[in-house]
């Protein structure tokens, strides 16, 4: 896999006369980790479907490495080997009786020789740490397992870009951590990953850039800057990540809504500790000075 960039340019999309996306521009640089945020019904999923080629926008374009996606049969076939979408409900994506057969579905459709199909299936299962599930019937799997099998199925297409709709929704906290580990692995293998999520804390901790869908448009930028913006949060029915909120409340950022470098519990604890140290340090210095 090599790093490809993905771009939406002026995408307009409406359903039954109701506009959902109204001139969306989004740029996902190769090798980035993008978190897509937005309220229920804001058009996140629609945007993902447009990016994956499942929907043809009313206007505008989707570009992979600057080349516009053609909605012809061959154009889509090519696009689908580069961009894969994993939908929210794994049951929509698992339709074979057992795990191995399901993951093999894509490679078989690529008309690959059997040896390569098997290799890809094994590799995908391995990457998600579910090799032991290979022979299991799909309907016996737990929710978290089904989610990972669905990702393995997309992965077997060896996409350069992986779009995931709410990959952590419905998972228990440990399942969320495992999912993040799997996503990090994918990234190390060279895939560019974009996730749509409602979890602003996760978005801040995980992503290198954030895109917020609101009123049919997309705002995109540095995670701390965008997620720390209280006005934007209100407009987009989001809330600010708790580390930014707490940092702000404690006056750590000196008026800057986005504390530089703080993105998770560890970094926040470090900043607070440093502040304490410097407070006691200056006290100690002052005490010594007397």
């Amino acid at each position: 896999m090599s790093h490809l960039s993905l771009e939406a340019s002026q995408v307009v999309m409406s359903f039954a006369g109701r506009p959902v996306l109204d001139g969306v521009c989004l740029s996902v640089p190769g090798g980035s980790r993008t978190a897509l945020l937005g309220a229920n019904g804001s058009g996140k999923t629609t945007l993902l479907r447009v990016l994956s080629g499942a929907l043809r926008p009313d206007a505008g374009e989707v570009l992979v490495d600057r080349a516009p996606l053609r909605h012809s049969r061959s154009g889509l076939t090519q696009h689908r080997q580069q961009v894969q979408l994993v939908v929210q409900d794994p049951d929509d994506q698992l339709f074979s009786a057992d795990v191995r057969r399901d993951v093999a579905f894509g490679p078989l459709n690529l008309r690959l020789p059997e040896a390569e199909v098997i290799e890809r299936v094994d590799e995908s299962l391995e990457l998600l740490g579910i090799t032991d599930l290979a022979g299991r019937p799909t309907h016996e799997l737990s929710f978290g397992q089904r989610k990972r099998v669905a990702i393995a199925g997309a992965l077997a297409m060896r996409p350069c870009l992986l779009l995931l709709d709410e990959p952590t929704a419905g998972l228990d906290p440990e399942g969320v951590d495992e999912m993040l580990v799997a996503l990090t692995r994918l990234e190390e293998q060279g895939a560019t990953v974009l996730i749509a999520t409602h979890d602003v804390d996760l978005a801040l901790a995980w992503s290198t850039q954030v895109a917020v869908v609101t009123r049919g448009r997309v705002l995109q930028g540095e995670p701390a800057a965008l997620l720390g913006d209280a006005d934007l949060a209100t407009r987009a029915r989001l809330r600010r990540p708790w580390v930014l909120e707490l940092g702000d409340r404690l006056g750590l950022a000196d008026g800057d809504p986005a504390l530089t470098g703080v993105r998770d519990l560890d970094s926040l604890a470090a900043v607070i500790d440093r502040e304490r140290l410097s407070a006691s340090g200056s006290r100690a210095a002052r005490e010594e000075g007397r």
Partner: protein
Amino acid sequence: MALDTAAWSSPWRHRSVADKAVLTLALLATTLLLPVWPTAALSAAAALIVLLGPARLAPTVLARSLRSPLLFIVLGAASVLVSVSWHDGPRVAITAQTSTQALTVLGRGVAGTLCVFVLAATTPMVDLLAGLRRARVPEACVEVASLVYRLLFVLLDTTRRIREAQAARLGLRDRRTTLRSAGTLSGTLLVRAWGRARRLEEGLAGRGYTGALPSLDPPGRVSIGFLGATVALVGVIVVVSLLGAGPR
């Protein structure tokens, strides 16, 4: 489902089902029973005026919904138009009789379809089923039908998502894969439909479901004015048709 969506937001949505059914059926009856010309043209025009006027159906929705029935009507009319025989070798011909007959089915088909739209584009299925309930159709049948309506949308959504997922993994690439995908889609859908039914049953049991689905149906108040207008409209069509067709 554009017609159904239109029905939910139709300004005639809260008119009594009986009113709308009487109008539709009266128009249909005149179309089918009276001489085709000018009746078909008149009832088609009346249906169009009702749909685009007081019922405020969007012309684009109307045009889109007409497409598929038109295909059948045109194909059927063309078959009627051409006469075939094989007594002394296969022979194809168009006669005055066949062209009259083709025009007849064309006129009645288009007019009839438009008349049904009067009901379809102003009355959501639930109201219609409530009407059937009042008309003494067995409760069990109405309930099955109303559940079909709800599950329809849930299953259509599922179908759409599964098909997109299959397409994404190139499952619709050629005939062979498309057939295989259609097979897995149908099977998966059946399993999902079953599971949904079972869970829905449990969900309903929690609210006291014992097999019957009582429904809060708003009382349908028949409007004398509306019925009067219907009678007048159909009356005019009948009189004009009989006069217009008279000389022939």
